[in-house]
Structures are given as C-alpha cells and as structure tokens.
C-alpha cells in the first residue's frame, strides 16, 4: 500500500502510513471485516513513534476527526471523514466514509508515551466498500453522436428526428475500467440550454442496465404502434403524428394498445418499467383514471393499480410493470404481449384524449425531482448519488441551492453492463415540452470491496 490516510479534502488528510507519513506516524494496520453486511465495524491499529508532544498532537487530530464525523451527521460540517487508501503511486485514491469513530489504546499505553511510542486502535463504522474520491466522467452515446464527453446534447423526447434523443448510453467498456468492481454511484450534471421563458421544474431520471441490449428502440412507442384511435399529422407531435380517440363509457375502456414482440421481451429481461404516457394535449377531466394491463392471447396477465390522471397535466406515469411479467425459465423467448391502456371516467360522460408517445421508463434505479422553484437558463441540476445530495447551481460554477424534493434511490451503474440514462423534464404548468434542451454530463465513482 502506497499510503493510508484519514480526513477529508476540506481540512486535509492525516497520513497514517506510507509516503508522506510524518512522525509520530510509524505504521498502520487495518483489520478489515469481510462480510456481506452493507455496514461494517472495523479497527485500524496505528503505531506512533515520536516525542510525547508529537504523539499528543497526533491524538488530538484523531479526536478532531472523530468529532467531525459527528458534526457531519448533525449537518454542521460539509464533508464526511474518510479512511483513504492509495494502492499505488498513481493519484488514484479509494476511500470509505466513517462514522462512530472512537479511540482505544492498550492498557499500558500511558506508560510508553513518555518513552516515545504508543499504539492507538481506531474503531469506526463504514459502508462495505471503498470508493474513488474523484468522480470520473463517462463518454455518452446516442442520437446526438458517439462517445461524447463534456456535454451531451439532450432533448425532451425521442423520435426519428435528427438529434432527437432523451436518453444517453454509457457503454459497458467504460464501466469496467478504473478498477470498478461493484455497482457504482452516478453523478448527474444536467444543464439547461433552452433559452427564453420556458420553465424547467420537475425532472425524472432513470437507468436501464443490460449485458446485451444497448439500443433504445424497445423503449419508445408512437402513433404507428398504437392500435386504437385516429392518427392526426402535426409538427408539434412526437414523431409528427398524434392519435386521438373519443368515447363514452361507464366502465373501464381499452383506449389503445401496442404489441411487444417476443424478441423485444427477450431483450427487456423481466426488468420493471413505468408506462410513461405523453399526451399531445392535456385533458380537462377531473375524474379520469388510467391503468395499464398486459394481455396475451386475450388473457390478462397483469393489471396495474389505477392512477388519477389530473386535468391540465401533459403526461401520466402509470404504476410499474414487469416485462415480461412474473418469473420465466428463460429457456426460450417469451410470448408476445399486448400492452393496453385502460381509462375510466367516473361520471361516465364522453372522453376525448390525444396522445403521441409511450415510454417504457426504467425505474430501478430511478429518481424524481419535484421542483421547489424553476430552473433558469444556464442553471445546472447536480445529483450526486455517492454523497446522496442534490442541488441546483444557477450557473455552472456558482450559486448552489436546494431546489427539489428528490424521491428515489441512488442512481447506480453496473460494471460489465451498458447503462442507458433516461430523462424527462416537466415545466411549471405540468407539461413535457418536447423541444426542451439540456447539456448532460454523467460521472461515476468507481467502487471496490477489496483493495
């Protein structure tokens, strides 16, 4: 090991062992606890050799680090305290944030300090991984080009139009470099590039992992896929057309469906998605509900819980569906599925709906950001799943503030699999304007359990 240190970037690291170690630091021996538990308790034995004053000063610094872990938990200090390892002389560090830090010495330790030596045992609790302390930017590929660094041009819909892509692919090769052994947290930088008055308010992010499927065609369905309704050409619609349908019913009504062929289902591998319906024009009904059903050969295999489709809202996110549903043996390809959208109006009076796109939006992992205030031009949304914090910067380098309520777990990428990042943005009037544009950058923190 090239170096072992304790501390953080704000107040600096205290080197315990290796290069740049200064007296009284002499030798440090970590006693790792190998366990499947997500949080583990460990100790590190720190041997000190130096003057009594040097030893006192060193112990004071250790106590400061213990106190800073408490301060961080209370929110009164900005950074966790890390136990950091530098395996080689490359400037690559792996660190683990600490909590519940306390010191112990051998019972006769007080006798030895005057003679210039002391053994300190540092107890701590940490998550069961070590993480690169620097986020590494990932090249992104998609409708706008391949392997783009420092800013992928994202737009708020995906169709056959030039550069029209709301997703970006992280190729699996980039996730296996940098000694990444474990699912690793993502850092998202989402900078608004649309100018003018439109407001960016709510954000929906999701990630789809696959060993085999790296394209995006399976996730988007348009007018030519929808069975049910009349197609109407419109430049403002996704893929240039929307479908409209009117009916009156006192019961659930099958508005339209699309077919998921066997080969598509084989690629989707039983993952869970949310049926994300984009309405070409919002409706005004206060009593409209929707649910999604998976049918095969006229048999309903799954039916979701109903959701309320609020008036004036330009999209509906239906409950999760597993594609294909339930657990299969996967020895042969799955059977085709029809994905139905059912609607129900409590009053039974007539309904007219117009819709242009359904997205199968991945949800494990996924995160929704509900805006407390709108994102201005040039502002950047930062979501750091390593630190589990998110913020908005009014420009790329300044003026950080909290701007959203975040719902969802950490966004993680998996080594060996490609990851496709999905995003949609809703404005302050709950529409998803398809021309919203942003510059997307994704970073990750490589993780490993064994150093």
């Amino acid at each position: 090991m090239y170096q072992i240190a304790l501390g953080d970037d704000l107040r600096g690291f205290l080197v315990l062992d290796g290069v740049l170690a200064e007296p009284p630091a002499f030798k440090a021996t970590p006693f790792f606890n190998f366990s499947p538990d997500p949080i583990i308790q460990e100790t590190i034995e720190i041997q000190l050799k130096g003057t009594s004053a040097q030893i006192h000063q060193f112990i004071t610094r250790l106590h400061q680090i213990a106190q800073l872990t408490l301060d961080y938990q209370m929110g009164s200090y900005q950074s966790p305290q890390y136990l950091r390892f530098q395996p080689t002389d490359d400037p690559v560090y792996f660190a683990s944030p600490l909590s519940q830090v306390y010191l112990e010495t051998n019972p006769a330790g007080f006798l030895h300090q005057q003679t210039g030596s002391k053994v300190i045992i540092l107890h701590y609790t940490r998550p069961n991984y070590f993480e690169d302390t620097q986020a590494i930017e990932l090249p992104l590929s998609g409708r706008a080009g391949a392997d783009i660094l420092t800013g992928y041009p994202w737009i708020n819909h995906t169709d056959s139009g030039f550069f029209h892509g709301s997703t970006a692919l992280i190729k699996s090769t980039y996730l296996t470099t940098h000694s990444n052994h474990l699912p690793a947290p993502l850092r998202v930088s989402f900078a608004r590039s649309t100018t003018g008055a439109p407001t960016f308010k709510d954000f929906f992010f999701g990630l789809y992992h696959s060993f085999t499927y790296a394209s995006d065609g399976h996730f988007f369905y348009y007018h030519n896929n929808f069975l049910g309704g009349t197609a109407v050409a419109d430049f403002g619609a996704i893929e240039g057309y929307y479908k409209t349908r009117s009916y009156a019913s006192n019961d659930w009504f099958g508005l339209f469906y699309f077919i998921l062929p066997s080969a598509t289902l084989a690629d989707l591998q039983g993952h869970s998605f949310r049926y994300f319906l984009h309405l070409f024009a919002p409706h005004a009904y206060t009593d409209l509900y929707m649910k999604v059903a998976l049918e095969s050969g006229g048999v309903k295999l799954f039916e979701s819980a109903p959701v309320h489709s609020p008036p004036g809202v330009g999209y509906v996110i239906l409950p999760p569906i597993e594609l294909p549903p339930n657990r299969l043996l996967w020895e042969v390809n799955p059977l085709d599925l029809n994905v139905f959208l059912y609607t129900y109006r409590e009053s039974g009076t007539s309904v007219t709906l117009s819709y242009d796109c359904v997205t199968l939006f991945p949800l494990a992992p996924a995160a929704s950001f509900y805006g407390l205030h709108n994102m201005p031009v040039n502002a950047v949304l930062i979501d750091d799943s390593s630190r589990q914090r998110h913020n908005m910067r009014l420009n790329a380098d300044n003026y950080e503030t909290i701007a959203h309520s975040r719902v969802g777990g950490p966004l993680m990428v998996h080594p060996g699999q490609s990851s496709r990042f999905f995003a949609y943005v809703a404005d302050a009037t709950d529409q998803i304007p398809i021309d919203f544009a942003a510059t997307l950058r994704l970073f990750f923190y490589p993780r490993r359990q064994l150093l």
Partner: protein
Amino acid sequence: MTFNIRIDSRTFDILPLKPFKTEVKRLDWTAFGGPDQALVSAFVPAERLLDFASLLRCPLTVSDHTAVPAWWGYINTIIIHYHQVKFTITLDELFNKVKVLYTFLAPDSFTSELNETAFSQDPFSQKEYGVKERVLLRQGIDEGFALALRDIFLQRSADPRSTLAPSLDSPDLRIDFHCKGWIHTLGWRFYQDLEGFYANHGPGPGQVPSGDGINHGIAQRIFVKKQVNLKYLSFMVRKFGSPASDTQAMVWPDAPGPAPNFNALVSSQVINGSSFSLSAYNWVQYTFSPPFPLSANTFYWVGFVPNISDANNYYYLRIDENSSFHPVSDLFAMRFDLPSYTFQHIPNLTQPGLNPDLYFRALCSIDSGLLLKNIVTATGDFITNINTFSSGVPALPYRVGGLSTLEEINTLMHLGTANQRLILANVDLDRRLTFYEQPPEDQPTAWMDQHGRFYDQHRVLLPSWRPPIGQYAALAGADHFVPRFDHRRIPAYFVDRFTYRPPTYG
C-alpha cells in the same frame, strides 16, 4: 441530546428556580392541538425535593440545544420518588366549579324530569389553577341531596389530589413531571349554547286550519340572539279533505307586509300537501338551501304557507294553547287572515286571552370554523388568541350535549371541511390556538428516508423533536414510487401523532 427546561409561574411570570439536572423522557405531539404530552424528570438533592410539589399547573417549555422551543404545556402531575416512597400530586381529580344534574322521584315513584343545581365554586382554587368544571349526574335524588352532594364534592376536590405509596422503582431521588399541552385545558370546562335551535314541542292542546279560505299562512315569532343560518323549519301538520296545493315554509321580518306573501324574506323548498297524513299530525320538515342568514338580536316570524286556499281541502297545524314557548314573552303564533289580508291573533279555546304557540322546530347552522372559534372563546381560559377559517361545512351551534369544550372541538375537527379534509389545530408557545385545514394527500410536504429520518420539502433534515405533525409524509428513497400518480397505490402517510423518546445512555 441535551434539552433545556424552563418552568414559569402559574401566572406566566418568570420563576427563579435553582439549577437542577433534567432529563426529557418523552415528548408527544398531535395534529389536533400541537404539543400533547411530555414526561420530564428532574434530579435534585433530597432537601429540595418537596419544593417542586408546588409547580403543579406551571407552564413548562422544552427547548433544544439551540434554545429553540420544541414542546410546551403545563405540569399536570408531579411524582416525587423519594427512596422507596412515591408521592403523587395531580390536577386530574381537581374540580373547582361543580353542579349536579339529577332526576328526582315523583309521587308515583317514577323518576321525573331532569333538574340541575346552580354551580358551586371555589374562587381560591380557580385563581390558582384555573376554572375546572365537573357536572355530576345522579338519578332519583331530591334537591337537598343534590345540593349537599355538590358542596361536599367541591370541598373534596377543589385542591389537587395526592397519593402516597411505597415504590419498588429505582431508589433514585427524582421528580417526574407529567405534562400536558395547553389544548387539554379546553377539557376543563363544559360548553353549552342554547342558540341555533328554536323549538316548541308543547305540551298543549290546539289546532288551527291553514289554506281553508280564512287562514292563509300560520307563523310563529322567534327572537334570534346570535347570527345563525336557518337550515330547516318543521311543523306538525295533517291534511283535511284532499288538498293538492304546494306548501312552503317562509321567514318574514318582524313586521310582515301585505299579501300575497307578506314580504317573505325567504321561502323553503316546496312540499306538495297531498302526501300529508289525513289522520295524524306528523312533523313536516322544510329545507332552506342555501341556509338563510338570521341576524343577531332580531325578531322574525317563521311559518307555514300553502299556495291555494280551498274551504273543503286544507291543512291543520298543531298549536300549543298552553303557550309553552317562552310563556312570559311576546313570542307567539299568528295567522294571515285571507279575507282581510291582515295579520291576526289565533283564538285560544282552552285558555282564552293567552296567545298560542305553534308546534315548530327551527334548526340553524353556522360554519363549523366559526363555531370552533365561538366554543373556544367562551370557555378557553388559557387560550390567548384564536385563528380560524371558513370550513364550508355547516354545523349546529346549539350545544347541550354535556360535552367539554375539548370534546366539542374534537367532534367538529373530525367533521372536516367542504374539501373532505380534517380540521387540524395547533397551540403555539404563546398559547394562540390556530385551526387550519389538513393539507391535500397527493402533495406530501415531508419525506422519510430509508433510515426513518424526516426531511422537509427543501431536503432539510428535521430533528426528531420537530416532527412534521399535521403533514403528509412519503417515502423518499424508493425507486418504484412517483408521488403525483401513486397516491392511491402508495398513499402518503398522515403524521397525526408523533412520540419522541430521546436515546438513553449508560
């Protein structure tokens, strides 16, 4: 976590107490009043233990390490642990304003009507602790017994009740303060309001025709003391012959005008008289929609009017020739004489000279938000200010159910608003009571992460002693959840009650 405890005097002045060590054991909050209950222990030298027995009903405030108040209320019970003895002193059984509600035995050995004594009061106790009422209910006793019972009960309960018992608890010298939020003081008094329900059920003989070609409508004079909204009017009616006319209830000013409707202020919905009974008097209820506002301190006439007069097919209304409705006042029934189109007295056949009353019921309502304010204003001795809002839900102001103010407001808070949401309440540090509407379920304003910690909308961690009471909270760390669309599948959790128990060390 270190909390600071402040105890003031019963008169809300600063109380110079010598420093003592305290430990907060439990803090409770509720969405229906804010701070609810608390348990705080104090550790003092043995010679000072009894000094703390005098702190009953003193205000107690718990502040966090930043000196921001987290819980407030009053000391309701004090338990002193003195070696193997436990001394308890409490306000629970203290009552300093007592009356007895009783039935007595009539000469035929059946219980007769309900009587009540006047309140007996202990001014000294009331000055020290505040007014705390108790109504005793007894059956089959006479007035003398009731008065004696009242006086002995007051004598025995005007001071705090104490108990002394051996204790197997730890031998620490400690004092436990069991505290309650100020909302609980609304349970100390009973609320009664006789306004908003005006009725005469007799007893008394008599009937008067209406719509018979002589008498047009029949009306009763009432006096309204507080502004209310008339919602229902009922009369005892039967038909004679086969009348098919439409009937209505109407309200007139104190000086009704000329025919045809005598300048009615408002008319109820229409009921066709063909449905009335021929053989029996039944209560017929007319609805005013929307309810009609009646002004405070104003006389009105309320009555029954058919739209056709027919000498062979008409209606009879029950009247009370005993004039039981305010017998000594000028509140009585009159008739609209059809040939002369004038307002005439109704003849009294059994007691000539006495003006009969109608058998009638007038049921009024006011907005439940306003009613909440009226109730607390009348009885909330410790509440310094009341903020309320219009709930959109009408409620009957007439209250004689023998319920305490706290029980009355709890009933109204659970009656909710026109938006089908509960009414919530909070008493702040300055004892100002605010009623407000429960927030909508589909817009959670608090979040709980996977570690069970609450956050506000701005992702600010809420300390455990500042829970999001009265708010909807949702899970923040779950991938399969989208709040706007999942509030039926995964409903947000309403934080109606929260208990904080600080961790103990050692």
